[in-house]
């Protein structure tokens, strides 16, 4: 019964996302929705390592940056087709994730968070200062849209790009759900609960942690690549630690360790700052306040609160 209700909700959400461009009258909101869908992909990745495995990674935006610059530079320097560079971007990101994850995930505890945070800082500094490669703060312009010049789809149209990002977000959300339901996902959830016991029942926890981290980085790399081709312009500014914190918050606010959580959370972190514009210079303070209150009063996120309410309506204990 409950499963049917869930399926119905997912179906409704799907219909809503498909109809969204028709419902939106302000073009700017369509733009924000596309950004939010990019963030859905990145947040689904973040959720695998943070929500399911219980290891907070503070480098998701940095990996988005690696993905974005990979696809842009491979396209510009080697003249590779856009679809290929978008597929290669997560692979490049994966290499960096193995190099950071391997040493920091062999041990338990907070080393991992510190190492990832430091790595995000390094990524940012390199993007800012390696002018020959990244053109520094000025960024890279003229990143081509997918489809080339004589495509039958008009990729310059935001509507087209919306459906492109939506399909990928659905695909990646589905993949995350498959991973979570598999033996691998069960092991990740077990690591979150009791890592010592995972070792004692014969499972090499570090391999699974590394898998979760590299997969999460590939999600970020893909999200970054799609973002780069959407904006046609990238600079280091949005690949800093502050944006990695947004990815963490998207997972917490949406509902850590749930599949729906990152979807809701991603839209939240993209749209909330926009709605707070009325507060002008108090905007960031207000944003911070909302986040702090949300974390205190809804530690299980919007999905958790909704689940409790639903259980109350049905008269069942949650």
């Amino acid at each position, binding site marked *: 019964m409950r499963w049917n209700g869930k399926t119905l909700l997912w179906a409704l959400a799907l219909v809503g996302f498909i109809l969204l461009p028709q419902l939106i009258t302000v073009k700017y909101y369509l733009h924000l929705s596309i950004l939010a869908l990019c963030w859905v992909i990145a947040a689904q990745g973040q959720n695998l390592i943070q929500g399911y495995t219980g290891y907070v990674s503070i480098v998701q935006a940095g990996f988005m940056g690696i993905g974005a610059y990979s696809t842009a530079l491979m396209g510009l320097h080697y003249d590779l087709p856009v679809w290929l560079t978008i597929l290669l971007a997560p692979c490049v990101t994966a290499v960096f994730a193995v190099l950071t994850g391997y040493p920091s995930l062999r041990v338990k505890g907070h080393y991992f968070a510190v190492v990832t945070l430091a790595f995000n800082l390094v990524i940012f500094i390199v993007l800012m200062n390696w002018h020959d490669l990244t053109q520094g703060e000025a960024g890279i312009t003229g990143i081509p849209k997918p489809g080339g010049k004589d495509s039958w789809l008009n990729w310059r149209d935001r509507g087209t790009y919306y459906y492109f990002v939506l399909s990928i977000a659905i695909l990646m959300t589905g993949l995350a759900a498959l991973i979570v339901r*598999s*033996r691998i996902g069960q*092991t990740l959830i*077990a690591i979150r609960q*009791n890592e010592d*016991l*995972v070792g*004692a*029942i*014969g499972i090499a926890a570090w391999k699974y942690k590394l898998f979760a981290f590299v997969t999460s980085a590939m999600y970020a790399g893909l999200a970054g690549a799609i973002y780069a081709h959407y904006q046609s312009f990238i600079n280091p500014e949005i690949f800093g630690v502050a944006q990695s914190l947004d990815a963490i918050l998207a997972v917490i606010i949406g509902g850590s360790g749930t599949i729906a959580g990152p979807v809701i959370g991603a839209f939240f972190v993209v749209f909330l700052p926009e709605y707070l514009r009325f507060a002008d210079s108090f905007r960031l303070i207000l944003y911070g306040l909302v986040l702090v209150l949300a974390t205190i009063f809804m530690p299980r996120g919007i999905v958790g609160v909704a689940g409790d309410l639903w259980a109350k309506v049905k008269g069942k204990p949650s």
Partner: protein
Amino acid sequence: MTTAILQVEKLCKSFGGVHAVRDLTFHVAPGEILGLIGPNGSGKSTTVNALAGVFPPTSGEILLAGGHIQTLPEYERVAMGLSRTFQTASIFPEFTVREQLRLGCNVTLKSHPLSSVFGIGRHPGEDEAVESRINDILELTGLAEVAEDKVGTITAAQQRFLMIATTLASEPKIVLLDEPAAGLVSHERKTLSNLIRAIRDTGVSVLVIEHHMALIMEVCDRIVVLNFGSKIAEGTPEEIRNDKAVIDAYLGEAV
């Protein structure tokens, strides 16, 4: 002489200047229940952790069914047939009893973990075999009626039995039970000693580390006594009960 399931040779473990275990030699024979006892601080826990692979021994050898394991990580020792429980309840509170046991069976699976993501390349019949083994273990450990309950909600005693059940899921050759009777009341201890014998009857050797003397005396075939990191006695329960050194160091007046 048949090969011992577990052979410990001149095991030493020091932490800085503290010699927690010194030149410890003993073995567990196939189908044997061996007790490891000693006062607090005598090196029992250090021995268990060195055997299980939580840390490497300072020197000495550990052989499992004739093969050296002292350099292997913990999870590889489990795959080779050595499983352990912990002194305190070690559980996955959010899982059901069945889910925790299913995870315990993972080490015995032949199909690659990735095959479970897309459902391709799996070994046929493997899932059914796992479920049937889980049912057997639930039956043996008396947890069948709470099989679908969340591990965090079952009683402390049931959690302790679940820890033992989880070690059995990996199809071990020997299980190390680290103070299995801690926190159990008398009738639960009775169930525990029956379970330990039942495990032995399935062909699995058992090494019990325990404070509860009545249980040890009742269930063990042989007993090794530690004091200050060294073995001071070894023998049948009857011999240990009457051993002068053991009485002085640990038992006090005869029990």
